[in-house]
């Protein structure tokens, strides 16, 4: 079993088809194949091999335009994303409103491993409040599970992929059991400066959590914990863990990692899954719809070979959609299945984003030091005002965390640019002196906050527009509520206060919430659209992502999330996928599917 072509795949019999190869699809395929299920994975993008395609140590100066972002490579030339971005040629989406504030930006990647190749690797657990938000403040929806239901799967995912973090135990910011996390990296000078001065404002700073191997994984201990009683799985994983190197504290994670020192599906989930011999992968396979049998069950999927344009049909006992939340919504709507509740496409969410940066004189003219570190989030600030908020003192309902940083990072097009606000504008030897003086003295803070699902944010099929394969596309409706806008204003005001406390200066004043908040979708944490729940009339799936209307159709990407806590969703998606896959295996063994 291996990479195969569509014609071969169509003839084979599989236990499970997994649509998508990112965090959700990768975890699903891993869990299923390690337990012996025969899986066909369909990926819309091309085959991608990080071992030979990653620009590990190239400098900005070695890229066209010094690596700066363009519409063809929005996150910069060296970013791992292939055939992706806010727009994918030939694959449009539309917006119901011409007002930019009511438009949604949809990031996609068309490559094996999807967005996990370039993501920020920030891996935060939801806390107990995050599963029962409606119970706590009356807004949004409760999940059909508690933190205790998912905690064992957070443990498993963290041990499998490798996540660094500390052992702080703060409100609604769960710590992991001993022996699960890797040690956090040493903070940078700018991190410590933030920590010292933010503390005066009651703002905490603790070790970040990211899926980066600060040390190698313990291949002797972890496989036994992850796959008890499964000697074959233990052996495969132990061998694979030994092929992953520790971080070399250089080169940005967003380029991907050829030495497999951080998590991406292509370096962590797929290699051991392939080693089981139970996984076939077809790339360039654009899924159009789920095939519904006469008895109401899923028979398989219809997909289009992007290279030939030919239509194919793959069949299996179970179909899993993990195409990314909104692509999964699109497949469901085009299939006209699993939607007796009418909730498919409803309650889509992104993360609230606002940011402010400035310059800190205490960080000028620093001694030479290598501050590449693990490329971000050595420290971060979890939400710290739960009680004030519950008491109604803030005027908005949910919290945010702060991602902050500075340091002497690899120079790019922003280096020594736009210094007029500091030095008035000069040239010559004085300019070169100022470039040295100010380099490394800039500091940014970005808020990442919880959005509450609302009736104004949803996706539907556009009545006329189709993509280049003839598949109807999504049309988005979007509107932030006063909660998100109030939260964004609070972010910028807080960031300005912290910069003041650090003795820093900012190039612009904090803005109103309406101006500060990023457009929907821009933070690329879109989730929802096929919400899980306890009531088939009000939700699309049960807590295992199993569709109420089609028992052998599961969803293991972000589409099932009932809320979008400020914690970046990828770790939660993986934990849910593992839990769903365990349930799939139980039902397969009981021949219920």
């Amino acid at each position: 079993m291996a990479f195969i072509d569509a014609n071969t795949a169509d003839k084979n019999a599989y236990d499970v088809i997994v649509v998508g190869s990112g965090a959700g699809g990768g975890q699903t395929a891993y869990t299923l194949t390690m337990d012996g299920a025969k899986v066909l994975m369909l990926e819309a993008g091309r085959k991608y091999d990080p071992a030979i395609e990653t620009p590990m140590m190239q400098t900005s100066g070695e890229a066209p335009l010094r690596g700066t972002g363009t519409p063809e490579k929005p996150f910069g030339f060296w970013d791992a994303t292939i055939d992706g971005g806010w727009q994918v040629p030939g694959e449009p989406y539309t917006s119901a409103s011409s007002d930019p504030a009511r438009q949604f930006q949809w990031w996609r990647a068309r490559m094996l491993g999807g967005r996990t190749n370039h993501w920020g690797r920030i891996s935060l657990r939801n806390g107990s409040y995050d599963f029962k938000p409606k119970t706590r403040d009356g807004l949004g929806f409760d999940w059909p599970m508690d933190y205790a239901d998912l905690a064992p799967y957070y443990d498993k995912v963290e041990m499998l992929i490798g996540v660094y973090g500390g052992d702080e135990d703060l409100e609604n910011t769960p710590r992991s059991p001993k022996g699960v996390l890797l040690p956090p990296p040493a903070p940078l000078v700018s991190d410590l400066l933030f920590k010292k001065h933010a503390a005066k404002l009651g703002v905490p700073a603790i070790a970040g959590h990211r899926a980066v191997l600060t040390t190698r994984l313990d291949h002797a201990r972890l496989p036994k914990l992850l796959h008890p009683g499964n000697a074959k799985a233990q052996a495969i994983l132990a061998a694979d863990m030994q092929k992953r190197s520790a971080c070399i504290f250089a080169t940005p994670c967003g380029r991907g990692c050829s030495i497999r020192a951080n998590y991406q599906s292509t370096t962590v989930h797929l290699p051991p899954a392939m080693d089981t011999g139970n996984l076939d992968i077809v790339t360039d396979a654009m899924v159009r719809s789920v095939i519904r049998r006469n008895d109401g069950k899923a028979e398989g999927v219809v997909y289009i070979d992007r290279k030939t344009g030919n239509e194919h049909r793959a069949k299996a006992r179970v179909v899993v959609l993990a195409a990314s939340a909104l692509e999964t919504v699109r497949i469901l709507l085009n299939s006209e299945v699993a939607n007796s509740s009418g909730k498919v496409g409803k309650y889509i969410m992104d993360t609230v984003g606002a940011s402010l940066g400035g310059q800190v004189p205490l960080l000028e003219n620093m001694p030479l030091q290598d501050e590449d570190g693990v490329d971000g989030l050595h420290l971060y600030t979890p939400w710290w005002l739960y009680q004030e908020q519950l008491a109604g003192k803030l005027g908005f309902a949910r919290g945010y965390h702060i991602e902050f940083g500075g340091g002497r990072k690899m120079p790019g097009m922003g280096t020594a640019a736009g210094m007029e606000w500091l030095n008035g504008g000069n040239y010559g030897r004085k300019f070169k002196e100022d470039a040295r003086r100010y380099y490394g003295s800039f500091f940014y803070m970005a808020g990442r906050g919880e959005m509450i699902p609302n009736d104004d944010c949803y996706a539907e099929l556009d009545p006329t527009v189709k993509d280049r394969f003839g598949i109807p596309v999504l049309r988005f409706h979007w509107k932030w509520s006063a909660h998100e806008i109030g939260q964004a204003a609070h972010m910028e005001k807080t960031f300005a206060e912290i910069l003041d406390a650090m003795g820093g200066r900012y190039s612009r004043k904090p803005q109103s919430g309406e101006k500060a908040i990023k457009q929907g979708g821009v933070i690329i944490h879109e989730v929802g659209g096929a919400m899980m729940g306890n009531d088939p009339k009000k939700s699309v799936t049960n807590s295992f992502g199993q569709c109420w209307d089609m028992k052998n159709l599961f969803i293991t990407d972000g589409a099932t999330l009932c809320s979008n806590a400020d914690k970046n969703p990828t770790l939660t998606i993986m934990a849910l996928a593992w839990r769903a896959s365990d349930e799939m295996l139980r039902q397969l063994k009981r021949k219920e599917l």
Partner: protein
Amino acid sequence: MDRRTTIKWMFAAAASVPQLQGLSYGATGDPLAREVAAGQAGYGTDPDLVKVWKPGGPWPLTLSEPARRTVAALCDLIIPADDASPAASAVGVVEFIDEWISAPYPNQRADRTIVLPGLEWIDAESQKRFKKKFADISAAQRAKIADDICSPANARPEFATAAKFFSKFRDLTAGGFYTTPVGMKDIGYTGNVSLSKFDGPPLEALKKAGLA
């Protein structure tokens, strides 16, 4: 280059500077740059990320030889040689700026409409003040012009547009220079090396920031 944009830009400058009104575009007969070809492709959404890229590779360069001389003179005015590092033009910044303003992407196309008229203006200004092109005047003479346009906040109204051009050009020069090996060394970037462990800041850095 886009002549309509140039003329518009020159006109805006001329409107506030009566003495510039006699200037006519292209009087020397030397076009500053070839047009960026209509429909010029970029590097695409799946470029080779492990090959060595050079200016002129992903799309053709367009600056004329006289324009490149002006660019070199301006780059080296902004980043001259000093004890720490050579001048900008010595490490490929002219080629980089040519790559930038010849690129088919929206931001770079917009910058082209600032840079090309700016190059034309600065030669014209040099001719007016010193009867020679900018590349042919002395360092002291270049400084006289630069002093009038290096600060957008302080530039006199008649130099406001030229000051905006200078700011843009300065940013491009800096980005081009500090991303080269000598530029990275000059500014004090010591990363991008493989380490077996990450120790965090040295004590002297902590002391300097009031943290130890």
